[in-house]
């Protein structure tokens, strides 16, 4: 069952084509990687998928919690559709604690109104209790529970990356977009992260798209790879075929 279909997607910034003519279908439960040299348009593609940029032309269709087909999405509605993401350059809420960061991820699962929040009616306590319990569970999975009251800016780098994933998961997504989750991690941390991604995918029944430069991670867990170069999709297939693809080798090593 396909859950994401991208049709003829274009995005240009003032005449410069950042992403052009992308066609892609992603099936439910897949874990796919997007690779390509720096500046190939990978993050722009994520920003198009999450409504941060509007496409110049083309269409994106999600079949998740509900079927949505639009040329553009509002970023804040993506979690409602079942899409959550992390960012390449870590965008945590720096002056909020670890727990509060994940509670923001849980935002749309809270169901009580402004009046209840102002007068702390019973729905406030019920919701906050449930939210805290579920978020606590997540923090334990990610080994962050002991640091739940630490300000997120004071976490070491690797744990900040993990916290961002936990925050995204708190929104209960069907599709998780990870933008360079292993960037800046050492080999050991990357190995651990690989295990974690595999585990959460099964545990939470997720489809995952990840952008990554770390080939060991990509080859290890991705079932399918998409290769971007100069904003175009130049190759797709399983990791073995991609490794042998001459176009891909050329894009990475340059020249004839």
């Amino acid at each position, binding site marked *: 069952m396909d859950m994401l279909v991208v049709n003829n997607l274009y995005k240009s910034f003032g005449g410069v084509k950042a992403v052009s003519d992308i066609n892609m279908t992603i099936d439910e439960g897949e874990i796919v990687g997007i690779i390509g040299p720096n500046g190939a348009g990978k993050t722009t593609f994520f920003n198009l998928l*999450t409504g*941060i940029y509007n496409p110049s032309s083309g269409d994106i269709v999600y079949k998740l919690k509900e079927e949505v087909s639009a040329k553009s999405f509002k*970023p*804040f*509605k*993506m*979690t*409602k559709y079942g899409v*959550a*993401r992390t*960012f390449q350059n870590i*965008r*945590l*809420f*720096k*002056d*909020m*604690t670890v*727990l*509060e960061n994940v*509670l*923001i*991820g*849980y*935002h*749309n699962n*809270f169901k*009580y109104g*402004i009046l*209840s*929040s*102002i*007068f*702390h009616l019973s729905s*406030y*306590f019920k*919701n*906050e*209790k449930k*939210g*805290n319990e579920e978020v606590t569970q997540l923090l334990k999975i990610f080994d962050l529970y002991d640091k739940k*009251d630490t300000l997120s800016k004071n976490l070491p780098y690797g744990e900040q990356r993990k916290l961002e994933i936990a*925050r*995204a998961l708190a*929104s209960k997504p069907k599709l998780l977009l990870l933008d360079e989750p292993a960037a800046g991690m050492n080999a050991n941390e990357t190995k651990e992260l690989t295990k974690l991604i595999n585990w959460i995918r099964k545990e939470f029944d997720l489809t995952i798209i990840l952008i990554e430069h770390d080939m060991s991670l990509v080859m290890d867990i991705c079932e399918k790879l998409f290769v971007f170069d100069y904003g175009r999709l130049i190759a797709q297939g399983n990791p073995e075929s991609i490794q042998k693809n001459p176009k891909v080798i050329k894009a990475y090593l340059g020249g004839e």
Partner: protein
Amino acid sequence: MKILNKKNILSILAILIVYAIVELLTHLGVIDSYIQLNLILIGINIILAVSLNLITGFTGQFSLGHAAFMSIGAYTSGIVTAKLGLPFIVGIIAAAVVASIAGIIIGIPTLRLRGDYLAIATLGFGEIVKIIAINNDYIGGAVGLNDIPQYTNWTWTYFLVVLTVFIIYNFIKSYHGRACIAIREDEIAAEAMGVNTTYYKILVFTIGAFFAGIAGALYANYFSFIKPDSFGFMKSVDILVIVVFGGLGSISGSIIGAIALSLISVFLQNIPELRMVIYAVILFLIMVYRPQGIMGNVELKLFNKKGGLNGYAGSK
């Protein structure tokens, strides 16, 4: 979980005791009318600072037009109580409602503006409100509105301060409040997590204006006389200074800041010629040596020992 838990009962007791002590001292003549005037001014400043803190401190939306909401509240209550002869409570509610409608209107530009640009737009809004008031003869024009019945007293002020602090504090401790703080921290990440930033920005301007309107009503019905100049750019700056001095994102900071700066201005009244010069120097020194304010973004904890912004953890 229960509303009447130990912590809440202690808080209510403390609130009532403070009120009773002031009442008692007033009856004994220890608090004379001059001290009472200053207590009421402090109360009005607390309401203004806490409500601006919601907008600027917690949600990160820079506003230099808070006095305009106060002005709208003051004139509304002035018209309702003086011209229409209705009771004070009607004036207060009307002031809050009309000001919050203005809050919605000024909230809309915030959707597109950030930082300094928003500050300037709100400044412009404040000036426009002032100029409209100056040119409106029904409300006395530049001369001002006179003969507003003096309804504001210590009791009204005190309980409206308590109400303001209670509501804004509770709001901040809810997921709605956390969403606002997330907007301050990183708007793009907040949106990606499902926070409707548009809705929350307008909401905080509306709530903030609501309470600034109440402060305006208290002001108008205490001094019996209001004029457009009282609510100009400088008043907005004064409120912002209290918030920054107390600590952006700290409600207890705003309360302490309002008390401290009101006291400073009482002392400066003895040297009227140098008052503003010294005020300027104090501002400058605060900004250079303690730009995060007295409290930073931390709350003063009286009864709950468990920290954190998360209300649930604190109220178990």
